[in-house]
């Protein structure tokens, strides 16, 4: 299914508006379809991206997220559909007239030019006077914290520095839309975490509408105003990071974002039951032919005393405990054979006192964390 994009809700909406730059442009994608042979790379995709928004296209490889970005950039012409930047229809506009900044997975820096040569390239194309080019290149390099690197050769830079040059080059001509294709995938984890924060604050500062492609769900949750989860060329869900995590539209989204245990449940009259056990759940269950209980591992309690009122409890047999440094993972088998995973913080550096294999234990799930989702894959 594809969802008509509504405006962002609640807090996130305020954040979008407060950073909105008058220069930024909204993007409107409607009914875009692209097929390669029999494969639908994009299947009737519609999407409204607000002015100044940071929107992430998240999906596994081959899901169509990059194809959609290439449609926005103008490198892929869809079979049909419409694409508007502001009020301007651009579906037939060639890439060089679209005025969008873009960064590439490989950075695509020009090795035969210096750092300043790279960053000044879009300005030279626009016949900006030389003195102004120097000034704006220096400014852009300053923005990405590479002041004074102008004369360096590209092959003298580290991966993180190349990434910054690519960003500087994409923003120096002040495009109103910025497209980023997995810009951090080639960096190691520490640097990636740091760059996520940096890119996000750069976005706040410049306020251009940003479309970001990644397959890393944590990156998407960290950076985005809204996330569009893409699979099989369709948008599975478009929501704020929080809504996506808390209220996934279907099993694919729930599975792709974060870890979870899924238990098959059924509707019996007004109630949702798991193995004859009625469940207390805060949010209403969706209307769908098959339903699942989604339990996030960090929301499951290991019960020792009397559970809180209305908490759903599950009898289980403990299996192995997996020590992961900051947390532990306890797998427990329910009596119907399903495995439920529970994640807890490791305190005082120990996992002593946790049940050992074979112990009978009780797991608890608060009604707010008892999320009933559409059991279909899409």
């Amino acid at each position, binding site marked *: 299914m594809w969802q008509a994009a509504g405006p962002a809700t609640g807090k996130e909406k305020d954040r979008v508006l407060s950073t909105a730059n008058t220069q930024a442009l909204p993007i409107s994608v409607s009914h875009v379809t692209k097929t390669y042979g029999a494969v639908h790379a994009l299947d009737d995709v519609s999407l409204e991206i607000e002015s100044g928004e940071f929107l992430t296209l998240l999906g596994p490889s081959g899901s169509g997220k990059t194809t959609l970005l290439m449609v926005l*950039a*103008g*490198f892929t012409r869809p079979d049909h559909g419409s694409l508007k930047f502001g009020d301007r229809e651009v579906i037939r506009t*060639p*890439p*060089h007239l*679209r*005025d*969008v*900044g*873009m960064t*590439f*997975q*490989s950075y*695509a*820096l*020009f*090795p*035969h030019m210096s750092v300043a040569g790279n960053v000044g*390239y*879009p300005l030279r*194309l*626009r016949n900006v006077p030389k003195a102004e080019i120097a000034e704006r290149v220096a400014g852009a390099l300053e923005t990405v914290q590479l002041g004074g690197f102008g004369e360096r050769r590209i092959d003298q830079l580290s991966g993180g520095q190349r990434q910054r040059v690519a960003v500087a*080059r*994409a923003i120096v*001509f002040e495009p109103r839309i910025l*497209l980023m294709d997995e810009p951090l995938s080639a960096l190691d984890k520490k640097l990636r975490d740091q760059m996520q924060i940096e890119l996000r604050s750069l976005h706040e500062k410049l306020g251009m509408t940003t479309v970001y492609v990644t397959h890393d769900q944590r990156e998407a949750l960290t950076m985005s105003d809204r996330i569009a989860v893409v699979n099989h060329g369709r948008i599975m869900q478009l929501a704020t990071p929080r809504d996506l995590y808390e209220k996934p539209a279907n099993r694919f989204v729930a599975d792709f974002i974060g870890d979870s245990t899924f238990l098959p449940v059924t509707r019996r009259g007004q109630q949702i039951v798991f193995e004859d056990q009625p469940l207390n759940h805060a949010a209403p269950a969706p209307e769908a032919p098959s339903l699942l209980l989604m339990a996030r591992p960090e929301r499951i309690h290991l019960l020792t005393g009397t559970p809180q009122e209305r908490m759903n409890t599950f009898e289980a047999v403990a299996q192995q405990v997996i020590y992961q440094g900051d947390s532990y993972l306890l797998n427990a088998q329910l009596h119907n054979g399903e495995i439920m995973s529970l994640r807890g913080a490791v305190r005082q550096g120990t996992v002593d006192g946790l049940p050992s294999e074979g112990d009978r234990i009780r797991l608890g799930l608060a009604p707010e964390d008892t999320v009933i989702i559409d059991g279909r894959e899409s």
Partner: protein
Amino acid sequence: MRWLTSPATETQVTHGQRLWLYVLSVVIMILLVVPTLIVIPMSFSDSQYLEFPPETWSTRWYQNYFGSAEWMLATRTSLKVAFLTMLVATPIGVLAAYGLHASQVAFVRIAFVLLITPMMVPIVLIAVGAFYAYVKLQILYTVTGLVLAHTVLALPLVVIVTGAALKGYDMSQEQAARSLGAPRWRAFLTVTLPQIKFAVVTSALLSFLTSFDEVIVAMFISGGDNPTLTRNMFNALRDQIDPTIASISTIMVLVTTGAMVLAQVFGQQRK
């Protein structure tokens, strides 16, 4: 000798154990080079006939070559045709290689095979074909005809050399340039071309030499006011065996080697 027992590479194989390889390599190099070099002493012979080794020495055959209007005409034709072939084949071949590389159309494979066909078929077939076609088109014995035929022969080399360079080139750079505001032709000229320029220069040189060295096609379609050097040399060999040919060959070897050395130096500087 310590050298014989020292390791040849990072493996434990010693230079001593590699000796046979070194000897074989030297023998092969000699076999490759000597037939070319043998013309040099022959060209300085004082004899009426081609002989090796020469008994007496002189530079009369060089004087004969530079003094002969016929040889000078042929030299001018060869240089002119080679230069024009280079100017025609290089841009066409580079653009073809670029098109083959950038395009995703299935026809690309067929186009590639068609482009390199002149390298596969016996050149005499091309020569015979060109001869009859040129008679009809009335461009036999013209510079235009020669340049066209030599371009056909040079194109496969340009396409292969430039295509190989493009394989190692990240096309997303060109996409980046286009997203930054460059029309496609400008992205190619400012981003792609500077990075494959060594291959392009090599291609140009090979086109020049392909034409300059070519004899079979030239035998059929050059002549009259526009004989090539190679054609005249071939005829001279047949009619009168005199060492002028050896002196011309020597000059050609020097020009060719010089050009290759220049290309190498140019390539080294780039790295």
